[in-house]
């Protein structure tokens, strides 16, 4: 019996230590920022203000490296403010930033996504609006691609400045397409035909790893837009419409149809995104539908796809209302300033540096689509990124990822619903459940 008591005690301690690990530790994160004693005073004094930046990503990611270079450049050129930056893996970052915000320990500057991600922070008064600063400096404001601030505008005020753009593209392997005499599909019927030919020849048609369900959800969002245009989703967003709109249900049916005709790798719902990209890289799969961030991962030095990789617009769907020139995507690599920031002027200066052509061109060279109109020397540009930019010239509309627009709760459920449909759930049933959930949870 004593042994058991001891055991239970150990269990209690273990549980306690786990719980303690979960609670935010006030003051810990802040110490880095408040180290400078003149913290609360404006940057008129002699002492430099320390500003802390929280960013998502892995420190060795090409984009993280560029951001780090920008931070160093800033520190060299400015004596009155010193920046420090910390990177956190993407999923953990979301939790981290929410926890910091809740504990009133928000960093001075932080990486953010558009629409639904930033919204709760803005509503809670944690984010500083850069509208006035943009208006004061028209040269800065005019650097940006038109319309890019839409996702960061709440009640007519702008809260963050993006540095790159992401759009979802249809990547394909030219060599495989040539080998089987295939043309890039322009309609859904043609796409189905391509899939059939590839399957007959033992090539995986579309490399799609849907274990994390946002991957398949992206594809379904494009399909839904091709069928019904942007209106059905905008109605869901503004709570004037429902998920039972025929365009969503038809998109669900098409997703199921694609899964049934083996358009995706075997067991794609158990496959991670990274190994699916490997399939495409190695030439086992002919197409890959992914955000433009994948350009870097597909065209690195020594990539087997160099010279073979090409990109196209996602095909139209017969009888659909949506324009082939609507692109799914979002402004990306965006930074916002928190209201807690000790020196907003210095922080704005960093945003300006990031959107300056000297940094923007680095982003472009690394294969990003940039958020500004900076002109890149064609010789240095990544050919695939250039092609995407060319295709985008006819862009009618940039519609934003559903899970970004709707925020975490409903967004995750949408992704789950699509995954369930590809696994065999009836689309109408899945969307009815999603609709109920949306009514309960959409803010």
């Amino acid at each position, binding site marked *: 019996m004593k042994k058991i008591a001891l055991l239970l005690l150990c269990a209690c301690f273990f549980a*306690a230590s786990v719980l303690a690990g979960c609670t935010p530790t006030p003051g810990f994160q802040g110490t880095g920022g408040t180290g400078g004693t003149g913290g609360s005073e404006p940057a008129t004094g002699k002492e430099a203000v320390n500003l802390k930046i929280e960013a998502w990503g892995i420190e060795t990611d090409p984009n993280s490296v560029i951001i780090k270079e920008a931070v160093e450049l800033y520190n060299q050129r400015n004596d009155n403010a010193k920046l420090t930056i910390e990177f956190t893996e993407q999923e953990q970052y979301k939790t981290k930033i929410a*926890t910091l915000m809740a504990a009133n320990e928000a960093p001075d500057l932080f990486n953010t996504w558009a629409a639904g991600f930033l919204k709760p922070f803005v509503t809670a008064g944690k984010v500083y609006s850069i509208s006035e600063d943009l208006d004061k400096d028209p040269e800065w404001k005019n650097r940006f691609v038109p319309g890019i601030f839409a996702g960061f505008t709440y009640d007519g005020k702008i809260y963050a400045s993006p540095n790159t753009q992401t759009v979802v593209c249809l990547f394909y392997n030219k060599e495989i397409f040539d080998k089987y005499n295939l043309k890039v599909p322009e309609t859904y019927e043609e796409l189905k035909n391509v899939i059939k030919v590839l399957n007959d020849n033992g090539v995986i048609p579309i490399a799609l790893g849907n274990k994390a369900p946002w991957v398949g959800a992206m594809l379904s969002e494009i399909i839904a837009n091709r069928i019904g245009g942007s209106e059905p989703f905008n109605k869901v967003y503004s709570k004037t419409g429902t998920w039972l709109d025929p365009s969503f249900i038809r998109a669900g049916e098409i997703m199921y149809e694609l899964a049934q005709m083996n358009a995706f790798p075997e067991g794609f719902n*158990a496959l991670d995104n990274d190994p699916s990209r490997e399939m495409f890289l190695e030439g086992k799969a002919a197409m890959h539908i992914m955000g433009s961030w994948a350009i870097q991962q597909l065209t690195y030095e020594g990539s087997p796809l160099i010279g073979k990789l090409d990109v196209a617009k996602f095909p139209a769907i017969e009888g659909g209302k949506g324009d082939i020139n609507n692109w799914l995507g979002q402004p990306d690599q965006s930074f916002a300033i928190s209201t807690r920031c000790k020196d907003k002027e210095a922080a704005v200066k960093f945003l300006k540096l990031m959107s300056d052509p000297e940094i923007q061109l680095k982003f472009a060279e690394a294969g990003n689509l940039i958020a500004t109109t900076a002109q890149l020397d064609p010789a240095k540009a990544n050919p695939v990124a250039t092609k995407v930019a060319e295709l985008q010239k006819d862009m009618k509309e940039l519609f934003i990822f559903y899970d970004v627009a709707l925020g975490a709760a409903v967004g995750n459920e949408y992704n789950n619903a699509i995954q369930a449909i590809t*696994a065999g759930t009836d689309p109408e049933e899945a969307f009815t459940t999603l609709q*109920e959930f949306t009514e309960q949870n959409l803010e």
Partner: protein
Amino acid sequence: MESMLKNKKTILSFVLPGLIVYILIVIIPIFNTIYHSAFKWNILGSKNFIGLENFVNLFTRDKIFIKSMKNTFLLMISSLVVQTPLAILLAVALSGKIKFKRYYKTVFFMPNIIASVAIGLLWTFIYNPEFGIINRFLEAVGLKSLTRLWLADVKTVMPSIIVVICWQFIGYHMILYLAAVENIPKDLREAALIDGVNSVKMLWYITLPLIKYMIGIDVVLMATGSLRFFDLIYVMTNGGPNHASEVIASYMYYKSFRDYQYGYGSAVSVVLLALCLVIAYILQRLFRSEKLEY
């Protein structure tokens, strides 16, 4: 020494430091959670008091929560039904005179000393539909029709996880029963043998009644353990696909830290706490046994 330990102040001075820590990091957060469960709160904005609305929603409108409740009970019941008899049988077998006793003990207990995250990853590889050992084996022996997506299929995901959980914990329960079985005095067994009892009867009439107290303890441990089960599910499926393997604890995490519905997540954890208490109480009543005196 004896008199010192009888002094209440001395006792207090020994107990107090631990008690304070315990109250600060266990008791207070529990009440804090109960308090938060009455609010609609996303950690950031203002808290809106909504009384019992979170609980009403949980039980009347939230299909995912109902699903996670069902899964939790499925997990608990299958743990009890599968692990208890197997652990007892293993313990009885190992208490007899067999070769390599220590070796078997170590082997059965091994999964228990491996970190859950490592176990989760290990079995994720085993279940991998493409290169996992199970599907490869089935293909190799010509049973390709039996291959499944295991962790990615709504129908197979819960059984797949339950297998891993049983594999992980059975050694632990076996050790508990082994201790109890080896505590039974030899003369009782010898007397029974002289009376011509076979091994089945020995198990049923001698061993089981004498380890009943341990079954009582173990069942409570097992039940509460599986009610708040979290780690393997988080590592292996994260509650997916489409919440098919969601249990109450993982749903609590999902709501609080993925959806930022902190008040709602608190309500989920209050339900979990209540369930643990109620079930532990019921099981303890069921297995109440008189003190054994040999």
